[in-house]
């Protein structure tokens, strides 16, 4: 059993969850995720680690309420227990001294990119962090990210804060300032990953994006998370979840993600990122 230490809505529809999971925290690295199962009748769902604290063994997750299982998580209170938090799963993000790295986060990815930003900075990279949301009230963790970034760029689709536009807007800014990125890393919904790949491929450097496929076990047993990368069948839970977006078969992925849309009994709530 895992104790909930904190749960609160940080911006509309996005919740912060702090859970006591000392064994996981001992091993976790940036880019990894856990699988949460909120008890009999729930689904097993993958959620990325957004932060952790070695002293008290707590793990922080930021999740968007989209359906049944995330809906259940959104009702948790401090002191509640959930039966399953398993991990850390997936391959960690590669952290090296690459030079200049552009880190991009949208919706829950604004949080899950944080460990990567921090680790890259600590390795001596120049880190440009870009966060993107529909509107000012959907952005969060500005100070946290700024503390470890050489430059933090805010973008809102309605122009209510920072620059107006989508991730492609940031690419304009980067091009204008003459920065030459050595690596791009993006976390967030599929749309963000896809758009990032499109916009940044011309730099001819790796565009590492998180693929959020459907998952069940998360340990490489069921095969539901399969995708085609570089012409090969790969499994996001053990070979990923991060892949070079330039090599991903996006069309197939988009179709696979919609497999259960007709089946889910609950409404889909998109926070306006146009995500899938």
């Amino acid at each position, binding site marked *: 059993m895992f104790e909930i230490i904190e749960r609160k809505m940080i911006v509309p529809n996005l919740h912060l969850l702090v859970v006591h999971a000392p*064994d*996981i925290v*001992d*091993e976790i690295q940036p880019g990894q995720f856990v699988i949460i*199962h909120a008890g*009999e*009748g*729930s*689904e*097993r769902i993958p959620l990325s680690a957004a932060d952790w604290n070695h002293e008290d063994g707590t793990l922080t997750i930021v999740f968007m309420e989209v359906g*049944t*299982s995330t809906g259940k998580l959104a009702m948790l209170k401090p002191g509640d227990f959930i*039966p*399953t*938090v*398993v*991990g*850390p*799963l997936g391959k960690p993000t590669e952290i090296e001294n690459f030079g200049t790295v552009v880190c991009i986060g949208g919706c829950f990815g604004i949080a899950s990119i944080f460990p990567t930003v921090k680790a890259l900075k600590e390795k001596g990279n120049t880190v440009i962090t870009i966060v993107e949301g529909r509107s000012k009230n959907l952005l969060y963790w500005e100070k946290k990210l700024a503390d470890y970034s050489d430059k933090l760029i805010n973008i809102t689709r309605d122009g209510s804060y920072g620059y107006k536009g989508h991730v492609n807007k940031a690419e304009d800014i980067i091009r204008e300032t003459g920065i030459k990125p050595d690596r791009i890393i993006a976390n967030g919904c599929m749309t963000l990953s896809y758009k990032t790949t499109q916009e940044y491929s011309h730099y001819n450097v790796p565009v590492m994006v998180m693929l959020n496929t459907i998952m*069940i*076990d998360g*340990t*490489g*047993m*069921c*095969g*539901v998370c*399969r*995708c*085609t990368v570089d012409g090969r*069948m790969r*499994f996001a839970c*053990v070979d990923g979840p991060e892949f070079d977006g330039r090599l991903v078969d996006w069309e*197939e992925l988009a*179709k*696979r993600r*919609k*497999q*259960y849309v007709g*089946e*889910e*009994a609950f409404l889909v709530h998109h926070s306006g990122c146009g995500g899938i």
Partner: protein
Amino acid sequence: MPKQPPYIRRRNFNEVALGYTEEMAVEEASRCLDCKKPLCVDGCPVEINIPGFIREIARNNFAEAIKVLKEKNCLPAVCGRVCPQEEQCEIRCILGKKGEPVAVGRLERFAAEWQALQSEMVMPVIKEKTGKKVAVIGSGPAGITVAGDLILAGHDVTMFEALHEPGGVLTYGIPEFRLPGKVVNREINYLCKLGVKLVCNYVVGKTKSLKKMLDEYDAVFLGTGAGLPWFMEIPGENLNGVYSANEYLTRVNLMRGFMYPKTYTPVIRHKRVAVVGGGNVAMDCARTAMRLGAEEVYIVYRRSQTELPARLEEFENAEEEGVIFHFLTLPEKLIGDENGWLQEIECSKMELGEPDQSGRRRPIRIDGSEFRMKMDACIVAIGNSPNPIIPSTTKELEVSKKGTIVVDESTNKTSMDRVWAGGDIVTGAATVILAMGAGRKAARAMQEYLMKSQ
């Protein structure tokens, strides 16, 4: 043995075989000749004293019968149901030479079920505590056997399981209608009563490395079973409606998809389903699809019925329930619509040529024999590779080219100090009883080591 009639059972998840009544069991047991040199015992991988337990059933001493069984087999309720008796114990039974062999498996199951109905559980004697700590990784039949043996020997045993429920394939793979979840739970609860500590949601190699486990435990057993499913490597395998057997069965069993929409893991109720493969796993998928309401379910197998690796009983059950068999048929291509949903599968007809290394005649494609079938789901049940998590995070562990963990044959000891392994992770896909046999062998060697070491 009485069964639910096919037209009823094909649409429900209740157990197919209903089990013997006491009278039936006594009658069947009375047929056993109580042979001096019982051939049946040679066929049982764990050498159960078969005439011994059957004799007790014939005398109405059911409690004694279960005692005899438990000397060698800690999971009689499971083995009695899922062992391939027709190629192990029963095939050797002397009575089978002329007529029907004694129904060893069914009697085994009867004794186990009888015991479960008794209000008082006789607890075995546990040896004095040794203070030694053992970690068992994986809670399938191999792990369960090791945990059971070593707890009785007085060690402190913790069993770690990656999923949220224990039991391995017994829980996530073999369907409810063949092996009810409550039977597996009963066995796990029994282990816990004996003092085994069970830790679910713990992926050794991820949550904690094997090396670190060795700092905390005196000995470790790896029974981690199967890993990534194999696909056919033909076009269209990532279409929607195409599943691995593991995904399909996990959704339905572990995640209780058969109760959807009461549960939240969706299972799509497809109308026309093709299952590729010919083993027990394929039969389980086909029969599951039928129970989820499919109109037509096909098994597509590239060899002929003679080579079908599934148990005869399961083949017959599937056929009775209306599963249609396409033998000598090989899928070549999966064809989808513009939204990525499976529409058709294209297959070739095969003929049998010379025997291959496995001794089975090799299927050869007949050119120009392609044909298409309309399908909205295809379940690929052609096997799995061994679970890679521990080997991939433990460089010191020797693995074969196939990815199985290499062990010493007589002790099941791995290349790593204080680490043993057994079950599917060592042999590749095998059977419940073989996994248990391997667990028993490892437990013996572990016990020897633990008693010798300081």
